[in-house]
Protein backbone atom coordinates (compact mmCIF):
# COMPACT_ATOMS: atom_id res chain seq x y z
CA UNK A 1 0.00 0.00 0.00
CA UNK A 2 2.87 2.37 0.82
CA UNK A 3 4.12 1.84 -2.73
CA UNK A 4 0.76 2.69 -4.27
CA UNK A 5 0.51 5.87 -2.20
CA UNK A 6 4.07 6.88 -3.14
CA UNK A 7 3.32 6.20 -6.80
CA UNK A 8 0.06 8.16 -6.90
CA UNK A 9 1.19 11.19 -4.87
CA UNK A 10 4.62 11.39 -6.51
CA UNK A 11 3.01 10.98 -9.91
CA UNK A 12 0.40 13.63 -9.19
CA UNK A 13 3.02 16.18 -8.13
CA UNK A 14 4.93 15.57 -11.36
CA UNK A 15 1.70 15.75 -13.39
CA UNK A 16 0.80 19.10 -11.81
CA UNK A 17 4.28 20.44 -12.61
CA UNK A 18 3.97 19.17 -16.19
CA UNK A 19 0.53 20.77 -16.59
CA UNK A 20 1.86 24.05 -15.21
CA UNK A 21 4.76 23.94 -17.66
CA UNK A 22 2.60 23.10 -20.69
CA UNK A 23 -0.05 25.69 -19.86
CA UNK A 24 2.33 28.57 -19.07
CA UNK A 25 5.02 27.56 -21.61
CA UNK A 26 7.53 28.38 -18.87
CA UNK A 27 11.13 27.21 -18.81
CA UNK A 28 11.59 23.96 -16.80
CA UNK A 29 13.94 25.80 -14.40
CA UNK A 30 11.14 28.24 -13.54
CA UNK A 31 8.77 25.34 -12.84
CA UNK A 32 11.40 23.68 -10.61
CA UNK A 33 11.94 26.93 -8.69
CA UNK A 34 8.17 27.41 -8.31
CA UNK A 35 7.71 23.81 -7.16
CA UNK A 36 10.35 24.08 -4.46
CA UNK A 37 8.88 27.38 -3.22
CA UNK A 38 5.38 25.90 -3.28
CA UNK A 39 6.69 23.09 -1.10
CA UNK A 40 8.02 25.62 1.42
CA UNK A 41 4.70 27.50 1.48
CA UNK A 42 2.63 24.31 1.83
CA UNK A 43 4.95 23.27 4.64
CA UNK A 44 4.36 26.59 6.42
CA UNK A 45 0.61 26.12 6.06
CA UNK A 46 0.99 22.75 7.75
CA UNK A 47 -0.15 20.85 4.67
CA UNK A 48 3.05 19.16 3.54
CA UNK A 49 3.85 17.19 6.70
CA UNK A 50 0.55 15.23 6.47
CA UNK A 51 1.35 14.54 2.81
CA UNK A 52 4.74 13.07 3.80
CA UNK A 53 3.00 11.09 6.55
CA UNK A 54 0.60 9.73 3.92
CA UNK A 55 2.81 9.18 0.89
CA UNK A 56 6.34 8.77 2.27
CA UNK A 57 8.88 8.97 -0.54
CA UNK A 58 6.08 10.04 -2.89
CA UNK A 59 6.15 13.41 -1.11
CA UNK A 60 9.85 13.68 -0.17
CA UNK A 61 11.45 12.68 -3.49
CA UNK A 62 9.80 15.38 -5.68
CA UNK A 63 11.31 18.88 -5.35
CA UNK A 64 8.54 20.40 -3.17
CA UNK A 65 9.83 17.99 -0.52
CA UNK A 66 13.11 19.93 -0.59
CA UNK A 67 11.32 23.16 0.35
CA UNK A 68 9.42 21.31 3.05
CA UNK A 69 12.61 19.83 4.52
CA UNK A 70 14.20 23.32 4.62
CA UNK A 71 11.22 24.81 6.49
CA UNK A 72 11.01 21.85 8.89
CA UNK A 73 14.71 22.14 9.70
CA UNK A 74 14.50 25.90 10.22
CA UNK A 75 11.50 25.65 12.53
CA UNK A 76 13.07 22.79 14.47
CA UNK A 77 16.14 24.84 15.33
CA UNK A 78 14.08 28.01 15.75
CA UNK A 79 12.03 26.31 18.46
CA UNK A 80 15.25 26.16 20.47
CA UNK A 81 17.27 29.19 19.32
CA UNK A 82 14.72 31.60 17.90
CA UNK A 83 15.69 33.63 14.82
CA UNK A 84 19.23 32.23 14.92
CA UNK A 85 17.74 28.77 14.44
CA UNK A 86 16.46 29.77 11.01
CA UNK A 87 20.07 30.41 9.98
CA UNK A 88 21.34 27.07 11.27
CA UNK A 89 18.44 24.66 10.82
CA UNK A 90 17.64 24.85 7.12
CA UNK A 91 20.85 23.72 5.53
CA UNK A 92 21.46 21.25 8.33
CA UNK A 93 18.28 19.46 7.25
CA UNK A 94 19.10 19.42 3.53
CA UNK A 95 22.84 18.96 3.97
CA UNK A 96 22.84 15.31 2.86
CA UNK A 97 20.95 16.09 -0.35
CA UNK A 98 23.09 19.10 -1.23
CA UNK A 99 26.43 17.51 -0.41
CA UNK A 100 25.42 14.37 -2.31
CA UNK A 101 24.57 16.52 -5.33
CA UNK A 102 27.97 18.24 -5.17
CA UNK A 103 29.99 15.06 -4.52
CA UNK A 104 28.23 12.66 -6.87
CA UNK A 105 27.66 15.38 -9.44
CA UNK A 106 31.34 16.22 -9.53
CA UNK A 107 32.36 12.57 -9.56
CA UNK A 108 30.09 11.69 -12.50
CA UNK A 109 31.17 14.79 -14.42
CA UNK A 110 34.79 13.73 -14.03
CA UNK A 111 34.15 10.08 -14.91
CA UNK A 112 31.78 10.49 -17.86
CA UNK A 113 31.57 12.55 -21.02
CA UNK A 114 28.41 13.86 -22.65
CA UNK A 115 26.77 11.42 -25.06
CA UNK A 116 25.69 12.49 -28.50
Amino acid at each position, binding site marked *: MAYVKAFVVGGLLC*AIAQAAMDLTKANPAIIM*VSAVSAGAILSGLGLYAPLVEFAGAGATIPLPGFGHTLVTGMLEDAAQWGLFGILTGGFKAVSAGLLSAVLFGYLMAVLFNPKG
Partner: protein
Amino acid sequence: MTKANIREQEAYSAFLEDFRPKRATLRNIVVAFFVGGLICTVGQGVLTYIMTRGIPLKQAYVLTSSIMVFAGAFLTGLGVYDKIGSFAGMGAALPITGFANSVVSPAMEFKREGFVLGVGAKMFQVAGPVIVYASLSATVVSILKLYVF
Protein backbone atom coordinates in the same frame (compact mmCIF):
# COMPACT_ATOMS: atom_id res chain seq x y z
CA MET B 1 -11.65 19.15 -55.76
CA THR B 2 -15.04 20.78 -55.24
CA LYS B 3 -15.54 23.88 -53.16
CA ALA B 4 -17.50 21.96 -50.57
CA ASN B 5 -14.66 19.49 -50.24
CA ILE B 6 -12.11 22.23 -49.69
CA ARG B 7 -14.29 23.90 -47.10
CA GLU B 8 -14.74 20.59 -45.34
CA GLN B 9 -11.01 19.99 -45.37
CA GLU B 10 -10.29 23.44 -43.97
CA ALA B 11 -12.84 22.95 -41.23
CA TYR B 12 -11.29 19.63 -40.41
CA SER B 13 -7.74 20.97 -40.22
CA ALA B 14 -8.95 23.89 -38.08
CA PHE B 15 -10.57 21.31 -35.85
CA LEU B 16 -7.28 19.38 -35.69
CA GLU B 17 -5.29 22.50 -34.91
CA ASP B 18 -7.65 23.10 -32.05
CA PHE B 19 -7.17 19.58 -30.81
CA ARG B 20 -3.49 18.81 -31.29
CA PRO B 21 -1.82 20.92 -28.59
CA LYS B 22 -4.33 19.74 -25.98
CA ARG B 23 -3.71 16.11 -26.93
CA ALA B 24 0.03 16.69 -26.64
CA THR B 25 -0.46 18.30 -23.23
CA LEU B 26 -2.56 15.39 -22.04
CA ARG B 27 0.07 12.93 -23.23
CA ASN B 28 2.79 14.91 -21.42
CA ILE B 29 0.81 15.00 -18.18
CA VAL B 30 0.01 11.28 -18.27
CA VAL B 31 3.63 10.33 -19.00
CA ALA B 32 4.88 12.70 -16.27
CA PHE B 33 2.45 11.05 -13.84
CA PHE B 34 3.62 7.52 -14.60
CA VAL B 35 7.35 8.17 -14.79
CA GLY B 36 7.34 10.49 -11.76
CA GLY B 37 5.23 7.99 -9.85
CA LEU B 38 7.58 5.18 -10.78
CA ILE B 39 10.67 7.09 -9.60
CA CYS B 40 8.94 7.82 -6.27
CA THR B 41 7.98 4.14 -5.96
CA VAL B 42 11.64 3.22 -6.37
CA GLY B 43 12.42 5.82 -3.68
CA GLN B 44 9.80 4.23 -1.43
CA GLY B 45 11.48 0.86 -2.02
CA VAL B 46 14.86 2.28 -1.02
CA LEU B 47 13.26 3.88 2.08
CA THR B 48 11.55 0.63 3.08
CA TYR B 49 14.77 -1.35 2.61
CA ILE B 50 16.82 1.12 4.67
CA MET B 51 14.28 0.97 7.48
CA THR B 52 14.46 -2.83 7.61
CA ARG B 53 18.16 -2.31 8.41
CA GLY B 54 17.11 -0.61 11.64
CA ILE B 55 17.76 3.00 10.63
CA PRO B 56 15.24 5.46 12.17
CA LEU B 57 12.69 7.17 9.91
CA LYS B 58 14.25 10.64 9.80
CA GLN B 59 17.72 9.36 8.89
CA ALA B 60 16.15 6.89 6.46
CA TYR B 61 14.53 9.77 4.54
CA VAL B 62 17.85 11.61 4.38
CA LEU B 63 19.72 8.52 3.22
CA THR B 64 17.04 7.77 0.61
CA SER B 65 17.44 11.26 -0.90
CA SER B 66 21.18 10.74 -0.98
CA ILE B 67 20.90 7.38 -2.74
CA MET B 68 18.40 8.78 -5.25
CA VAL B 69 20.77 11.68 -5.97
CA PHE B 70 23.53 9.16 -6.61
CA ALA B 71 21.27 7.14 -8.91
CA GLY B 72 20.20 10.24 -10.85
CA ALA B 73 23.80 11.42 -11.20
CA PHE B 74 25.04 7.98 -12.30
CA LEU B 75 22.27 7.50 -14.87
CA THR B 76 23.02 10.97 -16.21
CA GLY B 77 26.68 10.03 -16.58
CA LEU B 78 25.65 6.91 -18.51
CA GLY B 79 23.48 9.08 -20.77
CA VAL B 80 20.31 7.30 -19.71
CA TYR B 81 18.65 10.01 -17.63
CA ASP B 82 18.56 12.58 -20.41
CA LYS B 83 16.61 10.08 -22.52
CA ILE B 84 14.12 9.58 -19.68
CA GLY B 85 13.99 13.38 -19.34
CA SER B 86 13.14 14.09 -22.95
CA PHE B 87 10.47 11.40 -22.79
CA ALA B 88 8.90 12.28 -19.45
CA GLY B 89 9.51 16.01 -18.93
CA MET B 90 8.60 17.00 -15.38
CA GLY B 91 8.10 13.32 -14.50
CA ALA B 92 11.89 13.06 -14.67
CA ALA B 93 12.83 16.63 -13.71
CA LEU B 94 10.76 17.09 -10.54
CA PRO B 95 12.04 14.10 -8.50
CA ILE B 96 15.38 14.62 -6.74
CA THR B 97 16.99 12.38 -9.39
CA GLY B 98 16.18 15.19 -11.85
CA PHE B 99 17.86 17.67 -9.52
CA ALA B 100 20.97 15.47 -9.69
CA ASN B 101 20.58 15.35 -13.48
CA SER B 102 20.48 19.14 -13.62
CA VAL B 103 23.82 19.18 -11.75
CA VAL B 104 25.66 16.52 -13.75
CA SER B 105 24.48 17.53 -17.24
CA PRO B 106 26.02 21.03 -17.39
CA ALA B 107 29.04 19.87 -15.35
CA MET B 108 29.83 17.23 -17.99
CA GLU B 109 29.00 19.56 -20.83
CA PHE B 110 31.34 22.33 -19.66
CA LYS B 111 34.22 20.07 -18.64
CA ARG B 112 36.02 21.23 -21.78
CA GLU B 113 36.18 24.70 -20.22
CA GLY B 114 38.17 23.35 -17.29
CA PHE B 115 37.49 22.03 -13.83
CA VAL B 116 37.10 25.39 -12.12
CA LEU B 117 35.35 27.67 -14.62
CA GLY B 118 33.72 24.75 -16.43
CA VAL B 119 32.66 21.98 -14.05
CA GLY B 120 32.81 24.05 -10.87
CA ALA B 121 31.02 27.11 -12.17
CA LYS B 122 28.42 25.47 -14.39
CA MET B 123 27.28 22.52 -12.27
CA PHE B 124 24.74 24.67 -10.41
CA GLN B 125 23.45 26.49 -13.46
CA VAL B 126 19.94 25.10 -12.91
CA ALA B 127 20.24 23.65 -9.39
CA GLY B 128 21.60 27.01 -8.15
CA PRO B 129 18.38 28.98 -8.76
CA VAL B 130 16.44 26.14 -7.15
CA ILE B 131 18.59 26.36 -4.00
CA VAL B 132 18.44 30.17 -3.96
CA TYR B 133 14.65 30.38 -4.18
CA ALA B 134 14.13 27.40 -1.89
CA SER B 135 16.26 29.16 0.75
CA LEU B 136 14.51 32.50 0.31
CA SER B 137 10.98 31.12 0.40
CA ALA B 138 11.75 28.78 3.31
CA THR B 139 13.23 31.68 5.31
CA VAL B 140 10.23 33.93 4.68
CA VAL B 141 7.82 31.10 5.53
CA SER B 142 9.71 30.27 8.73
CA ILE B 143 9.83 33.90 9.90
CA LEU B 144 6.10 34.29 9.24
CA LYS B 145 5.44 31.06 11.08
CA LEU B 146 7.59 32.15 14.03
CA TYR B 147 6.45 35.75 14.50
CA VAL B 148 3.17 36.29 12.69
CA PHE B 149 1.10 33.13 12.96
